[in-house]
């Protein structure tokens, strides 16, 4: 097989190379397999990448090799890869890659960008988060099952607040819970909200939950990371592959699945094939996160609801 070849995607020629290079040595999953996955999941993934500045996380030698983050879209990008300019606080400008179309996604994946990390806002509204997000990160020996329990707890609270929430696996060790807003929220408000949620829950359930980043506080607990609600932070995008031993994917799940996972003690984990068959059957479970309009309630209401939680 040729080392470099071009793919014709909707009339755009995209060069791809070294397709047979193994990126996941444990399973033999190659760069070609990675590209194939992203192409096939793209109808569901691209809407989530639309207008989002993306940070590249590149693994030129596969998941066991060294990796690096690349915020600035490489200067050697083809003309059809558009960028989004974002000013930094020091006055300089970062040009993030825009992955509004399949050719741009394939081009980035060909640069060994295994993981896609996106912001919670959409360009150009850089200060307005489109959703509220909680990253549930287990401190060993806690694992994803304990994350699922905490996710269900968060869902219960959001139900009482009249908000719909959505869950996904991180594709790595934990889970994330997203509350779509798509209204004029600010990071100041969402962060304050998320922080109170995490801190009050950590006080109420000190054996299960912590709101502190410190690793020392984490063993056996779930870190409810509220700090992701920040215009400078990115979170792994839904349907992104992860650079783990196996080609696992950040996968949207139904609340029913979360409940039965806790009940049956079966951890939620999905690889590329499972994800592709899931989306073929059920479509994009995370689609409402992009469209559902919900207003963030006043923080006093959250406080009242949290006071009742036991």
């Amino acid at each position, binding site marked *: 097989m040729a080392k470099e070849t071009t793919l014709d995607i909707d009339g755009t020629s995209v060069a791809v190379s070294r397709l047979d290079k193994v990126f996941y040595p444990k399973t033999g999953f190659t760069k070609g397999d990675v590209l194939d996955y992203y192409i096939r999941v793209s*109808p569901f993934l691209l809407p989530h990448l639309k207008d989002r500045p993306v940070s590249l996380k590149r693994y030129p030698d596969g998941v066991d090799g060294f990796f690096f983050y690349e915020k600035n879209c490489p200067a050697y990008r083809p003309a059809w890869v558009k960028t989004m300019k974002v000013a930094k606080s020091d006055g300089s400008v970062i040009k993030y890659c825009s992955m509004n179309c399949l050719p741009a996604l394939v081009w980035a994946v060909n640069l060994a960008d295994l993981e896609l990390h996106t912001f919670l806002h959409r360009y150009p509204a850089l200060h307005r988060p489109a959703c509220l997000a909680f990253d549930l990160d287990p401190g060993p020996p806690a694992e994803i099952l304990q994350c699922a329990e905490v996710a269900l707890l968060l869902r219960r609270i959001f139900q009482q607040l009249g908000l719909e929430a959505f869950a996904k696996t991180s594709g790595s060790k934990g889970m994330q819970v997203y509350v779509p807003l798509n209204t004029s929220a600010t990071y100041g408000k969402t962060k304050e909200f998320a922080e109170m949620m995490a801190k009050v829950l950590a006080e109420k359930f000190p054996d299960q939950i912590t709101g502190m980043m410190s690793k020392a506080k984490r063993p056996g607990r779930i870190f409810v990371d509220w700090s992701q609600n920040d215009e400078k932070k990115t979170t792994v995008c839904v349907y992104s592959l992860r650079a783990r031993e196996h080609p696992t994917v950040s996968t949207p799940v139904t609340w029913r699945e979360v409940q039965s996972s806790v009940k049956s003690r079966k951890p939620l984990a999905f690889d590329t094939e499972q994800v592709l068959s899931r989306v073929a059957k059920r*479509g*994009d479970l995370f*689609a*409402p996160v992009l*469209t559902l309009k919900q207003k963030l309630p006043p923080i006093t209401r959250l406080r009242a609801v949290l006071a009742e939680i036991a």
Partner: protein
Amino acid sequence: MRTLWKGAITFGLVSIPVSLYPATRREELRFRMLRKSDLSPVSFKRVAESDGKEVPWDQIVKGYEYEKGKFVVLKEEDFARVDVEATQTVDIMNFVRMDEVDPLLFYKPYYLEVGKGGDKAYVLLREAMEKSGRIAIAKVVIRVRQHLAAIKPQKEGLVLELMHFPDELTDISRFAEPQERKIAAAEMKMAQQLIESMSAKWNPADYVDDYRTALEKMIEAKVEKGGSAKPAKVRRRHPENVIDLVSVLKQSIRETCAGKTTRKRQGKGKPRRKAA
């Protein structure tokens, strides 16, 4: 394993104690010269060209031939004087993007083992370089010679790779450039097919020194028989059949682009106008 060098990596005000170990070894069979008639080993003597007399080691100095037949003598002190900066440090000068450095410049890798008390700074340097996608360019003196070197993150550790100074690279313009001629599409297709048929996964275990193995086999046979033996045949590996990933990708693109309008896109929840 033997430490080649012990010292410290320095940059800014930071100093990280490290030891250097060669990361490669040269496995060459050694042969001795013998006298044909009685197989007596042959040894060398250093003799003066002027009178053929043997010169003992303590009478030998080093000279640089600056002109045919004319020498300047350099003593140990002279070399030492040049090495005023021969400190036991790897001095980082810059951090540069790895893809900017011509790979032809790297020639010899060493493992850098962290020394006592340097763990934190070592890990910090490694992680910071990984995050930034940059490698360190440094100067290091090994034995009496100053070298240019790069420090790169490698798995859990750091490696130091000796580099040629860029002016040591042969000027490419000295070589004849291929004259561009029109290549017929059919020729290109054939060449690409050939490459395709010979492509294989990179598997380090597939690449062994066949020449050395064959030589060793022949020696063994000779030792056993005491006579002559024909060289063992070198077996060549055929590339494995690889699935044509390109056609797999093309198929996926066809399906994805075709199904774009018909495939179910939405999960539950009504699509609404998007904010921002």
